[in-house]
Each structure stands twice: as structure tokens, then as C-alpha cells.
């Protein structure tokens, strides 16, 4: 028997993040992610193919309407590559945010019966989206080879950062919405709408330079996903974005993370009472 364990249960815990406890429960991140991936693909006939098919179909549609019909500029990239790269990194955010925002409500029966750091639930649901991304990334790389697209060596630096920033953006908003969704079920209806709006406000389908007014460009850069999308395309386009926009987006990225995680932590103790 371990005699040195001693802990105290008190009305509220004041720490921002209790890393020791999260570390102690690290295996649960894996198990939640693993379970969600298994369940997601178990009942589908095509299984993992869906992770690839979905962005592929979206790419075809957008290429047809935006690339061919509207002739939107694409920073000298073939439009399919332009839109696929954007969609790929965007899908971490849209799928992850949707998963995370509903994760607490979907796991209410577990939350009411067992203690574990609640943050594991939204984080794992985002990791599921990251898994889909990695599946689709394989397809994207084969498309790059097919188009004989030259790629800069900076890819080793920009791609991991693009992934990191998209996960941070998803985590901040995801935690916030997850907590709000437990308290007010109205948010269930807000989430798809919010994702749709952000999709058009983030330069996924078009370059930010398409907007002629500089003020509008600054406004769009406040999207926490702007930095992720730009970084992901950088090794392909080889054109550096306006650094002002990058800093604005990074700041918004971190502000949302802080708001989201703090709000989540402040309310998590009472999830079991509400859910």
C-alpha cells in the first residue's frame, strides 16, 4: 500500500491547469480517442475511406464552382491543390470543434458516474479529428506528386506548426462551447452555424488579398485559423504572408485558448450537476 498519497477534496480547485493530474490520467486521452475512432468507423461500410472521401468530394465541388466558374485566384497553385490544402487543415478545426462542443453532452452518462479530469473529453475528440487529418494527408501528398508540385524544404517547419495552431484554435473554442453546451443546450444549434460562418471568414477557398479593403483583411486575420491555413500553404506557394496578419491571428489563437480553457475549468466541477 502506498502511504504517501494524501489529497484533499475541497469546494473549488484554483489552478489553471493541473498538469500532474492530467499526466496521471494520460492513458485516458488515448483510450477516449481510440474508442471514438473505433466507433466512428465501425458501422460504416467504407470505414477509414470516409476520412479521405469527404475532403476529396469537397475539393471537386469547390474546384468546379470557385476555381472554374468564378476563376478565383489561387496564389499560382493549381486550384484543386489550393482548395484541398485549405480544406485539409480547416477540417481539423471544423470536425474537431463540432466533436469537442458536443463531447461533454455525449459523454454525460460517464461524467455523472466517474471522476477524471474533464478536459480529457474535448481534447480526445479533437485528436479524433487530427487522426482524420492524417488519413487525408496521405491522399494530399499523392495529389502533390500527381501535379508534380514543387515543395519547399520549410515544410518540416511550417506543417507541424500549422497543425499545432489548428489544434490550439480548436481546443480554445471547443472547450468554451463544450462547457456552454452543458449549461445551455441552445448551443447545439449555434455550433454548425458558427463553423459555417468561420469557414467563409477564413481564407480557405480564396486568398486574403482578394479583399481589396485593407481593414477587411485585418478583420479576417482575427480568425484563429488564419495562421494555420497560411502556414500550411506556405511551403507550396513560397510567398510569405503579411506578418501583421500572422501576429493578429496568433494572438486571437492564444486569447481563445485562454478564454476557452479558463471557462471550462471554472465550470467543470458542476458538469455532473447540470448534465
Amino acid at each position, binding site marked *: *500500500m502506498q502511504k504517501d*498519497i494524501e489529497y484533499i*477534496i475541497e469546494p473549488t480547485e484554483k489552478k489553471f491547469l493541473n498538469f500532474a493530474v492530467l499526466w496521471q490520467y494520460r492513458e485516458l486521452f488515448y483510450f477516449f480517442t481510440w474508442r471514438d475512432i473505433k466507433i466512428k468507423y465501425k458501422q460504416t461500410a467504407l470505414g477509414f475511406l470516409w476520412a479521405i472521401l469527404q475532403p476529396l468530394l469537397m475539393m471537386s465541388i469547390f474546384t468546379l464552382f470557385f476555381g472554374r466558374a468564378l476563376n478565383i485566384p489561387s496564389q499560382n497553385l493549381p486550384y484543386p491543390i489550393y482548395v484541398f490544402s485549405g480544406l485539409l487543415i480547416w477540417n481539423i478545426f471544423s470536425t474537431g470543434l463540432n466533436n469537442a462542443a458536443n463531447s461533454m453532452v455525449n459523454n454525460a452518462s460517464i461524467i455523472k458516474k*466517474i471522476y477524471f479530469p474533464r478536459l480529457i473529453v474535448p481534447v480526445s475528440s479533437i485528436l479524433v479529428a487530427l487522426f482524420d487529418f492524417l488519413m487525408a494527408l496521405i491522399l494530399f501528398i499523392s495529389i502533390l506528386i500527381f501535379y508534380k508540385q514543387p515543395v519547399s524544404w520549410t515544410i518540416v517547419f511550417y506543417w507541424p506548426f500549422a497543425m499545432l495552431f489548428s489544434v490550439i484554435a480548436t481546443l480554445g473554442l471547443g472547450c468554451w462551447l463544450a462547457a456552454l453546451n452543458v449549461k445551455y443546450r441552445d448551443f447545439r444549434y449555434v455550433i454548425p452555424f458558427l463553423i459555417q460562418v468561420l469557414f467563409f471568414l477564413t481564407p480557405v477557398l480564396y486568398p486574403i488579398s482578394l479583399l481589396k479593403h485593407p481593414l477587411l483583411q485585418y478583420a479576417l486575420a482575427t480568425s484563429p485559423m488564419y495562421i494555420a491555413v497560411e502556414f500550411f500553404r506556405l511551403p507550396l506557394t513560397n510567398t510569405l504572408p503579411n506578418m501583421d496578419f500572422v501576429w493578429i491571428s496568433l494572438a486571437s489563437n492564444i486569447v481563445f485558448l485562454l478564454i476557452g480553457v479558463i471557462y471550462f475549468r471554472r465550470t467543470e466541477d458542476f458538469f455532473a*450537476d447540470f448534465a
Partner: protein
Amino acid sequence: MKPILEIQDISKKFRISHQTGSYLNLRERVVNALKFEKNSTEDFWALKDISFEVQAGESIGIIGRNGAGKSTLLKILSKITPPTQGRIISRGRIASLLEVGTGFHPELTGRENIFFNGSLLGMKRKEIESRFDEIVDFSGVEKFLDTPLKHYSSGMQLRLAFAVAAFLEPEILIIDEVLAVGDAEFQKKCLGKMEDVSKSGRTILFVSHNMDAVLSLCKSGILLKEGGIDVFGTTQDVVKKYHLEMDQNVLSIENEVIKFIEIKQIDEGLLLTVKFNTKTPIDYPNLGFSIADISGHAITGTNPRKSKREFPNFSRSEGVIEVKIQSPKLSNGTYQLFVWFGDWHSNFFETKDPILFQINDIAEEHNRNPKLDGYVIPHCEWTVS
């Protein structure tokens, strides 16, 4: 030696809103903010100043009526919900079983569910791997390990769930009523496993309505009443006090059609008294009852309509119904009572939680065991020729 668990002045307040459901609705929030009147919420203390200490290796039974605060206390101890006031010092890892099979998913196979559930309960992956064969052995579902859980019978799911939980090795184990499910043989197996756990020197907090289980498992007990500790002593004393309170079992209800329900033992029969008050006069009052064993399996029950009893037209809105239940004769023990009330066509009221009552001092046969012989004592005439 310091106690393994110190509970100091724990209180828990819930805010009951009279308009909304269990979760808030944004529209109501906005509307209430615009209106000047105060939202009609009411504070309710589910627990008030609970203090006690548990020594390492002790097993304590926590009993009390529905709503006495048992579940809330367990939830605070398991860190699911924080206390409003007070604190708990724990000198060991706590694992809680408020439900068996939490997180079980129908799409996952038995094997996958063992891993996920075990991990949720706080086991490390390596621990689960090393005990995997024992868990499967205990559950008895080895043939279906790679079958999705949705194809399991409910009994198999339960066995699998308990098997995972049985191999938890925390210093402090908190168990809520998990034995109230499953067949008699399986309950016995579970109880046996829990006795092993308590003999191995671990601390157990056990909440149950099943007094036999509490008596056999725990040396001391706590009787909770209206959020406070009524008695803290040996299990025998606590169970006796509990039975004493149950004997005069009256359930009074406000704002309902039914004003009170009382069940009393009279000699070897039962007397059920129900007072009602409806808004409009009622022609044919109809009262149904059902008596179940402590695990919730129905034993007997009826209503006047079922037994085709004719009453004269009643046509009043207030009255008392008395039911003398003379047969079947029940053996000693704790039972659950459920009551319905309505007219000949629809129900106006039904009990949500069972009302517990006690049957004592029945001149029983020697060595009667309800688990084997049943709860109903047969009336027989024997002839040997």
C-alpha cells in the same frame, strides 16, 4: 495511525429552480434577466455538516431512505461533484463504482470494453493486460470476447461489467447499490468477491438498500437522515434503527393527488392506507399496488379493476382507501412498495421511488432462505400415504 479518510463538515447545496428542467435554457435566462422579479429558485441542502472518519481496512455501510443524501455523499467522495462547504482528506486512492459498466459501448467488443471501462475506472493499461485473463474468467464470457456488446444479453453485460470492477485495487473502494441487479447466483458471487476485497485490508464504503448485504459486509454503519448523520455505530445498531424508522413507514406528499401512503404490518398481514384529494370529484377511485423484493423484482400486486371488484359510485374528491393484504404471506425481510392511483381510465399518480417496508416476527419455518425458498411462504397441507 491517521485515519485513511477524514470527512470534515461536508455540506452540499443544490439550487432548485421551479420553472426550468435540469439544465438551463438560454431563452429563460434572457427572459428572466429582462423581468424584474427574482427567479424563483430555492436552496436545498442535500447534505449538512457531515463529519466522520474511516480507519484503514474498515468497511462502512451507508444506509438511509431515498433522498437522505447517500448518493450525494458518494458523489462528493468520488470527486464527481464538489462540496459546497467542508473538506475531505484522503490518504489513499479512491475508486468508485456508482454504476457497473460505465462507458460500455454497444458497438465495441467485449475485449475493447474491458480496456476502455478499466481505464475509466483508473486502471493502467498494463494492469488491465496482466489481469485480463482473470477478468474474463470471472465474467464467464470468454466465447464472446470479440463479439460487439450489443449482441450480449443483459446478464452477460452485467457480469462483464462487474468482472472489470472486481479487479480494481484502490485503497478505498466506494460502491453504490451495484448488487441490486442481476440474478441471485451472480449477486452471491459479487458479494463473495467484495468480502475478499474487504478481507484483503482495503477500505470499503458501501451504500445499499439491501440490509442483508450491509450486515454481512460491514462492521460499522452510518444512517443518514435528511442530509445529516442520524446514527454512526455498529452495523447491527444502525440497521435496527433503520428498521425501526421503516416500521412506521408513512410517505407524506405535498402538492399531489396523493396526500399520504402508509404501509403497516398487522400480525402476518399488511395494511395499506392511502389518502387522496383530487381537483374534481372522482367516480371510481382505483388504487394499484405492487410489492417487490429488495432487488426490485415484483412479487405480488393488484388493483380493484384487475380483480373485478365493484364499488358504488364515489363522486367525491377526497377520501381514504384501505387495503388489507392478507395473502400471500411474506417471509421476514425488507420489501419495496409501489403505488398507482387513478380513476377507472387513467393514472393520476405513481410512486417514483419505492417505499421500503419491513416484515418482522413472522413465525417462519426453520432455516428459511428467501433466495432459495422464495419470498412467499406457501400455505400447504401435507399428506403422506
